[in-house]
């Protein structure tokens, strides 16, 4: 089911060809980072802190070095000094000093799992045994695990040099304050008939990609290094590793392996510089692969948060005012996505008066990394629950209530500038008209909830080349690691422009020396920005084809046109020429044809999604079963609909896991107690229904093919949709994620006793 405003009749785009890397991936041939081996390769393991917060008094590696098979050990002292300032690095801004401190602790450990030393040995088992022989002396400090503790006066300070503009030269755990304001909030609330105010708490959660982080580093005596790893951004791995290692960017080549999921978590570095450092010390290739426990303890989950939302609406269902306070756990170093969360939290609605204050707070947890629409899901859990409650107060259907307040083209965004063409209303109508929403939900303890979500999507830099081969087929080369089928989309765009069969186009993901700079596979940007570069590169090839045909026909280029994959001479009856026919004449007409394009993409089209969930609650245990789920999302233009649906379904599944059972569970010492897939409970096949999709295609005017990007916004609505469904099933408003059985049961029992009391009182 799809609603499309995208014009242009396409031959390839919108079809569902088999992905070009498919056979390799169903036969086990595809090479992921951990699959690389080299002659003489050593294996590395990382020693990690058992403490959440401690000073390192001493590290003794002598015993470990004596273990037969151990070749080298590195600690924080082996890293060059790094500067404490903000720098631009691809998608994100970085602080070189904090980045370095996260790769190997300098003089302090800041979370359970913080890397302290790395060992290279002849087998992973020996490296692991060596870790047990490294002696570290700690001065254990009080762990700071939540924003509440971190912001209390006199709280232990994590980073002695951290300052923020407002507090001047005072030591603090608050790294940043963002504020967004419009109109007169007090006046706004005066105009409201209903005002709802609640506090929400969301637990820290992990992206949960199945492939652990990995890296193989090879350092050559000439000072050149090569890194093979599974990453969302080879160019970022290169610039960040160069930064940490104090090497020139040009001396590092990063070869992106196939990647087993990332969802934002593989946009930064952990093992990559260690593999180079150990290779430099040993003269051999060194491979490091994280264990699952290391991934959960020491990679980059997304922030837990505390959010207070107060919103007002008039009787007739108009949102008039919002006052919001939000604080996100950044982890051990500054940089939670709270700013993005603040810009998303009321983005879907026109609200005349609002003030949003957002705080980035450091705590003794792993440094957070990006996770699918970073910051937006926490925010939407809070705002979309309040919206639902206001709709209920007004006695208006939750979808109609949202439609009455939905943003459309020309409305101001939270940050000020007006929206261009957007598709929120279409996603709301998509759900409203879906078989799911039209169906009647019957049965006890069952409820239906809806929620909407917003994400900006990203542009940034991408490069592409299109090579026309001697037989008229083509290859399209980009720098975007293919994390969910993007190769197919790049080949389809090339095939569409050049009128080729999609199987005649071979899509390639190149290393950092073989293609121009390309920012991360993230921000829903590959099909948008890299797709734009591919489109331009194919157009460049088309221009060259026209020139060549003109030469062959002894005409001027403007007397030749390219139509339906064929070159046509205007006027007289020269028969049209296909690329296959022209290709053999490339040598005599000027040589090979390579189309090139690099972009710093503008014209980003924001994404909206609306999700509807039916749940059934076990009244005796608080266990929630998702019975049915539908998501409508604006793709702009769906290049390969199957993989667009796949992104919508995958993000929804992650959102449902976030809603129900996923959470970082730390004990009072700040030790992570569920650092494995047994107790970090991601949804299994048995926990989810089929996920119905409505692909909305509200063309993005900023893209030659109308593409917006679909990777992220699908994760935003589910937690709120589930909370709203639970309310309709059992009458309690959940304000905490995960809405796990113990929490929901407690809320239900409290609700029952209170309703009994009030009943008794009547």
């Amino acid at each position, binding site marked *: 089911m799809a609603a499309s405003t995208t014009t242009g009749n396409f031959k390839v785009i919108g079809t569902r060809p088999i992905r070009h890397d498919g056979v390799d991936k169903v036969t086990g041939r595809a090479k992921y980072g951990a699959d690389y081996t080299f002659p003489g390769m050593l294996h590395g393991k990382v020693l990690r802190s058992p403490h959440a917060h401690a000073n390192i008094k001493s590290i003794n590696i002598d015993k470990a070095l004596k273990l037969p098979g151990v070749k080298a050990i590195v600690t924080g002292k082996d890293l060059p000094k790094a500067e404490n300032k903000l720098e631009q690095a691809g998608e994100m801004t970085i602080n070189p000093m904090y980045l370095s401190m996260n790769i190997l602790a300098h003089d302090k450990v800041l979370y359970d799992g913080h890397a302290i030393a790395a060992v290279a040995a002849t087998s992973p088992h020996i490296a692991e045994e060596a870790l047990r022989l490294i002696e570290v002396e700690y001065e254990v400090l009080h762990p700071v695990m939540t924003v509440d503790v971190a912001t209390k006066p006199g709280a232990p300070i994590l980073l002695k040099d951290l300052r923020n503009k407002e507090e001047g030269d005072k030591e603090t755990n608050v790294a940043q304050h963002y504020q967004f304001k419009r109109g007169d909030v007090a006046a706004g609330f005066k105009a409201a008939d209903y005002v709802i105010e609640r506090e929400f708490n969301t637990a820290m959660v992990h992206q949960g990609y199945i492939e652990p982080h990995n890296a193989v580093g090879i350092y050559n005596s000439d000072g050149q290094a090569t890194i093979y790893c599974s990453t969302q951004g080879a160019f970022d791995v290169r610039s960040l590793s160069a930064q940490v290692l104090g090497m020139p960017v040009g001396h590092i080549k990063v070869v992106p392996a196939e990647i087993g999921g990332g969802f934002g978590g593989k946009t930064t570095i952990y093992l990559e510089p260690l593999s180079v450092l150990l290779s430099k010390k040993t003269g051999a290739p060194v491979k490091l692969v994280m264990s699952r426990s290391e991934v959960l303890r020491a990679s980059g989950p997304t922030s837990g948060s505390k959010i207070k939302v107060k919103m007002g609406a008039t009787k007739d269902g108009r949102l008039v005012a919002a006052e919001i306070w939000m604080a996100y756990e950044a982890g051990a170093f500054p940089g939670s996505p709270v700013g993005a969360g603040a810009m998303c939290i009321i983005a879907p609605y026109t609200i005349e008066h609002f003030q949003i204050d957002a705080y980035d707070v450091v705590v003794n947890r792993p440094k957070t990394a990006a996770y699918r629409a970073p910051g937006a899901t926490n925010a939407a859990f809070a705002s979309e629950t309040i919206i639902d409650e206001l709709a209920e107060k007004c006695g208006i259907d939750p979808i109609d209530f949202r439609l009455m307040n939905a943003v459309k083209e020309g409305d101001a965004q939270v940050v000020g500038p007006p929206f261009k063409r957007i598709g929120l209303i279409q996603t709301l109508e998509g759900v409203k008209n879906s078989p799911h929403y039209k169906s009647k939900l019957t049965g006890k303890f069952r409820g239906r909830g809806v929620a909407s979500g917003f994400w900006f999507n990203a542009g940034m830099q991408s490069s592409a080349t299109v090579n026309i081969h001697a037989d008229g087929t083509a290859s399209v080369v980009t720098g975007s690691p293919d994390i969910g089928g993007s190769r197919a989309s790049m080949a389809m765009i090339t095939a569409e422009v050049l009128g080729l069969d999609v199987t005649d186009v071979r899509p390639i993901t190149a290393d950092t020396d073989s293609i121009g700079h390309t920012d991360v596979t993230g921000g829903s940007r590959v099909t948008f920005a890299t797709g734009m570069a591919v489109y331009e590169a194919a157009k460049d090839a088309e221009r060259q084809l026209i020139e060549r045909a003109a030469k062959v026909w002894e005409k001027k280029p403007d007397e030749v046109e390219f139509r339906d994959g064929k070159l046509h001479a205007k006027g007289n009856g020269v028969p049209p020429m296909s690329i296959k026919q022209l290709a053999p004449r490339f040598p005599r007409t000027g040589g090979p044809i390579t189309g090139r394009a690099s972009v710093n993409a503008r014209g980003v089209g924001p994404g909206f999604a609306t999700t509807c969930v039916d749940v059934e609650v076990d009244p005796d*245990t608080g266990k929630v079963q998702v019975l049915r789920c539908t998501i409508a999302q604006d793709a702009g233009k769906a290049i390969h609909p199957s993989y667009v649906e796949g992104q919508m379904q995958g993000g929804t599944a992650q959102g449902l896991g976030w809603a129900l059972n996923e959470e970082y569970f730390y004990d009072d010492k700040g030790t992570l107690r569920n650092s494995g897939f*047994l107790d970090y409970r991601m949804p*299994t096949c*048995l*926990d989810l229904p089929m996920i119905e999709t409505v692909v909305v295609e509200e063309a993005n005017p900023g893209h030659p093919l109308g593409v917006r990007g679909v990777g992220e916004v699908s994760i935003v609505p589910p937690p709120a949709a589930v909370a709203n469904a639970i309310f309709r099933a059992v009458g309690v408003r959940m304000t905490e994620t995960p809405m796990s059985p113990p929490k929901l049961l407690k809320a239900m029992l409290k609700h029952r006793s209170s309703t009994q009391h009030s009943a008794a009182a009547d």
Partner: protein
Amino acid sequence: MHAINYEAPSTIDQAVAILKEHGENARPFCGGTDIIIQLRAGVRRTSHLVDIKKIKELRTLSFDAKKGLRLGAAVPCIEISESDVMRKHYPGLTEAAHLIGSLQIQNRASVGGNLCNGSPAADTTPALIALGARARVVGPVGEREVPVESFVISPGRTVLKPGELLVELLIPAPAPHSSDAYLRFIPRNEMDIAVVGVGASVTLDGDKVKAARIGLGAVAATPLLETKAADVLIGKKLDDANLEAAGRLVSEVCRPIDDMRGTIEFRLHIAAVLTRRALTIAAERAKKI
């Protein structure tokens, strides 16, 4: 992982000899679904693994209408859930075996290994306790039988002495008009460790309870045999009031902990809920026999 030695004897005597030789440093090895994880994590430093899967007697499952069930310690869970005999006579134990991990795990893990691992949350142990199962143990100085409820002495530790081997589990033949059930609570629908597990067996006399046994998992440091609730039910109908009472008595004997799987408060509540549900299912089944 530290270096280990692996041996796969084909007789009980050989196995016992090897276990005796290496004492505390040796452990029987069956499905490996717990011990390999523990060795990797360094929580056990066993240096000798004695694979018992090649010992015939430990791989046999045999049922006799009078003598009951002999369940070899190394019989994988999958053979239990695929056995018609088991489904007919011991549906509760069969459910428990079917709940352990994924199919990949059930294809390797055994009920005996589940017991010897000594986890308070083992799924099959409460089911065995409800059935009055006894563990037959062979060691250097001969053999002995231990009631399953007293087999585990603390988390990860059992009554097995160095050199001793669990050979089989002996389960009485079901009495007329009796059956069993096992229920566990987990947050997901698969792959979790029991937050609470309750096994119940019920023998009926008409619509009244003639005898009942309740086994509890994940509510104390070891799996428990609960007797109070079972006793008060004798001679009574399993109506709501009596089930409520039984549930209350069960949560009284529970001594659970707060952890990432559930709070004390939650476990006490769930223990009562599952007791009511398990007794009801067992009784329903007993009626049909």
